[in-house]
């Protein structure tokens, strides 16, 4: 391992663990309070259609739109949307505060967060402390994701996080990341409908990402070569994409822009270390994708993130992903619906709320939408929405353990995808025979109350027979959306 320099502090993973232990800050509580989404979803055109008229066709159309905006239509949700109209319901979803304080879910939500320990032990983390950290972090991420998708009233936000957690993925395979992931997940939830430019700054300065892509240790002073991991994936995965027009020189230059974006050793919070920062070759002119630094240290990085968020390649790629998830996995990047949504992204200053609102309310939606296979988290959540009673807060820890088991078997534990590109979108990636067998076994497990605290009730799907319920759960009606 590299030794700490005399003037600087090399933040190795091992040292970071000690920092975490010393700092003792509870993850999930450090994010900003009271952040409110700035955009409402109104876009002037094409708002008349869904939910406005009567008839069977419009019911089916409305049902599909609600299915895509949520983790499954329930009688309560159907009634709620029907009474105010889909567009209004959607606007309210987007305008609602990130953390819902009302309803029975609030108590459950509190119980989920309570899984996290105050601190994972003092001093250097012992083996059992690491195990406790893993158990707590994976537990809170699993419960928050799945129980949130199943029971939280802010359904559209849950859907957005499902997409953003892939686009801005941090893998839980590292121990330090595990500590910071619950707070990272909270950050994604708070910024889900706001400006993508702001989300990029939150992402780039979050300890989970700084550790996951190694930027916390990146220094470019003197003869030091900065760590290129974050600079590359920022352009390839988070923004413009691999065909976005950058080259290898740009990757090195981007790494220089973010050199010094690090963590405070004492508090484990983001800090910019000017003594580690150097623009390198960019200081003598040159640009990255047309962007030029101003030599203002940390502000250069933020400026670059703003530039990347507004870059046409970022807009197209991000909006296309949202369209693939909310409308059709097969939709072309140049489909009129996608192009309209890209225009809205630009006009609305990179706000995500109006983009999603347009995709889901457009008159183009019914013709463009195609069936998708529910990914495992989606499938579990929708099963619970349809057939399970809301769990008791006291049961959350054991539920988290049981859900972790079935999701691991199906290959979609929240944040556990090992590479930085996030879980795949296409149905084909989840359709292998092995995955299908795991899917059935997970449903058999749920149907036989194999996850304590989550009892499925056959009567909720109009049968008294458990085997019949299982067949319904395994059918295309429920597996496809």
């Amino acid at each position, binding site marked *: *391992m*590299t030794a700490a320099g005399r003037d600087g502090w*090399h933040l*190795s*993973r091992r040292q970071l663990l000690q920092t975490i232990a010393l700092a003792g800050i509870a993850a999930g509580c450090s994010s900003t309070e009271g952040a409110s989404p700035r955009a409402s979803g109104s876009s002037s055109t094409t708002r008349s259609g869904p939910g406005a008229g009567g008839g069977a066709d419009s019911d089916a159309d409305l049902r599909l739109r609600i299915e895509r905006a949520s983790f499954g239509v329930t009688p309560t949700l159907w009634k709620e949307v029907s009474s105010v109209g889909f567009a209004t319901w959607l606007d309210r979803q987007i305008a609602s505060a990130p953390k819902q304080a009302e309803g029975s879910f609030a108590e459950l939500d509190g119980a989920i967060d309570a899984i996290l320990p105050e601190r994972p032990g003092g001093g250097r983390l012992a083996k059992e402390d690491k*195990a406790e950290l*893993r*158990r707590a972090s994976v537990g809170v991420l699993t419960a928050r994701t799945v129980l949130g998708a199943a029971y939280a009233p802010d359904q559209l936000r849950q859907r957005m996080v499902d997409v953003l957690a892939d686009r801005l993925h941090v893998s839980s*395979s590292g121990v330090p990341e595990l500590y910071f992931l619950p707070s990272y997940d909270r950050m994604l939830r708070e910024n889900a409908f706001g400006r993508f430019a702001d989300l990029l700054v939150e992402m780039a300065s979050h300890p989970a990402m700084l550790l996951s*892509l*190694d930027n916390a*240790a*990146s*220094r470019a002073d003197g003869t*030091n*070569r*900065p*760590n*290129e*991991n974050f600079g*590359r994936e920022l352009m*390839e995965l988070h923004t413009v994409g*691999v065909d976005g027009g950058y080259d*290898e020189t740009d*990757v090195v230059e981007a790494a220089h822009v973010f050199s010094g974006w690090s963590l405070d050793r004492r508090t484990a919070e983001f800090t910019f270390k000017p003594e580690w920062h150097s623009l390198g070759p960019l200081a003598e002119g040159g640009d990255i994708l047309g962007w030029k630094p101003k030599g203002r240290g940390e502000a250069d990085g933020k400026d670059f993130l703003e530039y990347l968020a507004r870059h046409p390649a970022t807009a197209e790629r991000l909006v296309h992903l949202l369209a693939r998830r909310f409308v059709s996995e097969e939709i072309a990047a140049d489909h009129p619906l996608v192009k309209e949504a890209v225009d809205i992204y630009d006009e609305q200053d990179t706000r995500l709320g109006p983009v999603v609102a347009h995709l889901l309310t457009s008159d183009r939606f019914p013709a463009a939408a*195609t*069936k998708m*296979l529910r990914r495992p988290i989606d499938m579990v959540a929708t099963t619970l929405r349809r057939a399970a009673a809301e769990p008791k807060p006291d049961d959350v820890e054991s539920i988290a*353990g049981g859900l*972790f*088991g079935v999701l*691991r*078997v199906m*290959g979609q534990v929240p944040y556990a995808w090992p*590479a930085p590109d996030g879980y*795949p979108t*296409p149905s*084909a990636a*989840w*359709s*292998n*025979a*092995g*995955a*299908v*067998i*795991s899917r*059935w*076994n997970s449903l*058999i*497990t749920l149907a036989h109350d*194999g996850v304590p605290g989550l009892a499925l009730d056959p009567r909720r799907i109009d049968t008294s027979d458990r*085997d019949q319920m*299982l*067949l319904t759960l*395994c*059918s*295309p009606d429920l*597996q*496809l959306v």
Partner: protein
Amino acid sequence: MTRLAIVFLRGGADGLSLVAPVNDADYRRLRPTQALAASAVHDLDGTLGLHPSFERLAGFAADGTLAVVPAAGYAGQTRSHFQAQAALEAGGTSTGGTGWIGRHLAATAGSKSSPFRAVAVGTVSIPPTLRGTNDALGVPDLSSIGLGTLRTGRGRKSRVRIDRSGAEGFDTATVLKAWSGAPLEPAVAGVTAATAVLDRSETGFAESSGDDSDFGTGEAAEVFAAGSQVLDADLDTEVLMINLGGWDTHDAQGTTDGALAELIAGLDRGVGALLDRHDDLCVVIMSEFGRRVAENASGGFDHGTGGVAMVLGAGVRGGVHGEWPGLATLDQGDVPATNDLRALQAEIAEKVLHTPKVSDVVPKVAGPTLDLVA
């Protein structure tokens, strides 16, 4: 008939640490704190040496059954994980998302068609290498093939048990019927294949030999043991695929010990035990690219181009194959991809898999054959 095992090191394994040019002055100059000492490695040919953690592979090298291809890659390849993996798994050609092994399987299916012909273990997805055929399967391990209630422990490594009593009343034929005519082709195909796999499992799989301690401990050991069990079972598996992660060592890579050394030790024990148990096996180890020659300030290495590939086991001609260009002339700071991996893939397709038309699987490239396999 020789069978094939592909071990894919995901993340871009540092070729210069797996097989180090320990006497090269440029190697020591560009890696002031991260170079391996000449005395530490298992010497191969006076120029290159195996990482000290390759204890088993050093033995295979001495026996003449380990072939090493340094400076291996595709000419002009990118330094993106995702593009480089896609290119390598596709066999250096673009054919609508099919993999090089997938195309071989599709071309040779016929009467022996079965999802067990190619099995990827430790996963529930089909790796891109095996795409383009119905004759491939991704499973965590054989014990996960079967219906029932899942009994899982909390730990990361604890095995999942299937309690088959839970599946009473679950009729796959009824499920299959509900899916006939369903609108999403990949999902329907998956359901159909799952039913076929379950039918096959009715006749039972060979029991695991019980003691897997020769594979070592940890995640790599589990996946190698699962792969070995597939080869032991009476499934006529022709190709086994094992994916190992963690090779993206941008930070704190370490030298004789540390993160990379642990990964190498896991690979070494896994491959060693696999070959001990299966004398009809040819193992290919590959990764999407090698890493930068010079170290970065966080004790790691960023994405590079030329890496290292290895072939070992049945029929292999040992030694260093291809050309080692040295480190005097670099490709934007990286080892040039002097030895084309398509040549390796084509030779495996021809001599191990006996593909009828090699150019359908891997396009022909200029240059001499690597002559890795007899």
